């Protein structure tokens, strides 16, 4: 509502932001104390000096680095695939006229509302029958395309590429595919980056499907799952578990620091047009 806000607005926002940050702070507080200190009543409220010890225990109990590498591989592969496939399809839906395009686009929008991830049982059977269980290929397969990606790219490209530009390129004798590469892709680049970022985060944070598809191999979320189990006992070893949770969050915090602006812009863009 475009007014100069008073301190009440800043105060309320600050309260909300601090409240949002507290759980992260808590994970660092507990993750930097020994197991005994972490289980005291009342619990410690300021960070201790044992984070590195706990980090070492995390690295001893889980294959943290290889889990992180696996997460990185799968998330990048899915993000690249979604970005590429969605840009192709989004461009066609936004700029090319063809029979059935409205019906097919309607289908894409509808499938965004379909919870396909509920189909874990047949996906599990398929992966097993094709010998893909416990491989990164199995983890990546279901997220190689998303309906949201096509929708997102189409919405962006409708306005981002003027029809005249496509016409001009075609007049100059560009083939369809060259028009795509020289006109559409450069214009689509900001949206492609955002879509990559979103898909990357979605796959990185996914827990259910890797849990189904993997056995020995681990992604970061599965490593956390195992870590939580080893942390259980008479009294849960929260120092170990929260140090691990904190360590697993660091890569995304770095990504957030580098590209938070784009993330914010992406969410707000998707909203106005969605």
């Amino acid at each position, binding site marked *: 509502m475009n007014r100069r806000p008073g301190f009440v607005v800043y105060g309320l926002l600050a309260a909300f932001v601090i409240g949002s940050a507290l759980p992260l702070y808590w994970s660092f507080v507990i993750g930097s104390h020994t197991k005994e200190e972490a289980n005291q009543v009342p619990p410690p409220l300021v960070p201790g000096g044992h984070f590195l010890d706990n980090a070492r225990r995390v690295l001893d109990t889980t294959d943290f680095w290889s889990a992180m590498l696996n997460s990185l591989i799968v998330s990048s592969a899915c993000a690249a695939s979604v970005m590429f496939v969605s840009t192709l399809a989004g461009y066609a839906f936004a700029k090319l006229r063809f029979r059935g395009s409205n019906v097919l686009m309607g289908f894409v929008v509808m499938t965004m*509302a379909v919870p396909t991830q509920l189909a874990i049982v047949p996906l599990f059977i398929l992966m097993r029958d094709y010998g893909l269980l416990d491989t990164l290929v199995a983890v990546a397969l279901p997220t190689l395309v998303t309906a949201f990606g096509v929708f997102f790219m189409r919405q962006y490209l409708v306005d981002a590429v003027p029809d005249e530009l496509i016409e001009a390129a075609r007049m100059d004798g560009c083939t369809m*595919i060259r028009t795509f590469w020289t006109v559409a892709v450069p214009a689509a680049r900001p949206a492609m980056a955002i879509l990559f970022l979103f898909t990357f985060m979605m796959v990185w944070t996914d827990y259910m499907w890797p849990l189904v598809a993997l056995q020995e191999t681990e992604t970061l979320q599965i490593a956390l799952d195992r870590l939580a189990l080893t942390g259980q006992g008479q009294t849960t070893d929260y120092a170990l578990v929260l140090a691990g949770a904190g360590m697993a*969050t660091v890569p995304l915090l770095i990504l957030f620091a580098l590209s938070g602006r784009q993330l914010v812009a992406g969410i*707000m863009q998707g909203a106005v047009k969605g």
Partner: protein
Amino acid sequence: MKLSPYLYISPFFILFGLVGLFPLIYTGYLSLHDWERLYYQRGEFIGLENYRFVLTDPVFLKSLVNTFSIFLMSSVPQVIVAVAVAALLDNHLHGRTFWRMSVLLPFVVAPTAAVLIFGSLFADKYGVVNAILDGVGLEPIRWHVERWWSHFAIAGMVNWRWTGYNALIFLAAMQAVPRDLYESAALDGAGRIRQFFSVTLPMIRPTMIFVIVTSTIGGLQIFTEPRLFDDTPQREGGPNHQYMTSTLYIYVKGIEDQFYGRASAAAWVLFLIIIGIALLNFGITRLLTRRHA
């Protein structure tokens, strides 16, 4: 010329058909068949027997109630707070980008990490929440044991992660509201609060529908939180399934116990419920917000 648009869209449709649509239909097919666990193969066609089993299984029914309870506790406060935060952000703020990024911070914490953190905050014995309750003279709550309180804790972590995200969506919608609408409302003597209810809210109606429908689709499939909140090794949503959700039921029945037919039937029941609720939401939100406008 005539062929190439289809070449552009075909990678999506082929891949989506293979890894999205086909498994969903296959789930329906499996749900109508028995499953020979011993021989690891599909048994004979048994009609709706799996559906009969699932719909009379007290554990599944309990999981449905849990799913709805957690969903309501997370979606309703989340939308209200998100709209409020968006209204705060929709001002001429100093450090605009800073505030917007700050409210989004919890979103980059994976649900697995979030539930481990909240599991410790809400720990029954040594948790900080119980320490605070104790400090102000209240009885500590057994968050991992008592059914509705466990839902409260789980809803809390879902809200924590998604409120800021939804606030940004609402903010985008609020900024698209033409400013002269506010000016003419102000001329008519409407105060800020009045303007919010009679201009802002009706104008962001489509976005409300969008957020409510997407949060329904996501909220009814909560899995990570109830599974990892459980600190017993079985991890079936508490010793008495107090917070087992339907998605967790599908996982336990299908992947762990290998009753593929029953799990598939449960998946289709949940699938139909989600689509139904999403449509219902869509209708109700339209109706309610239209009356305001």
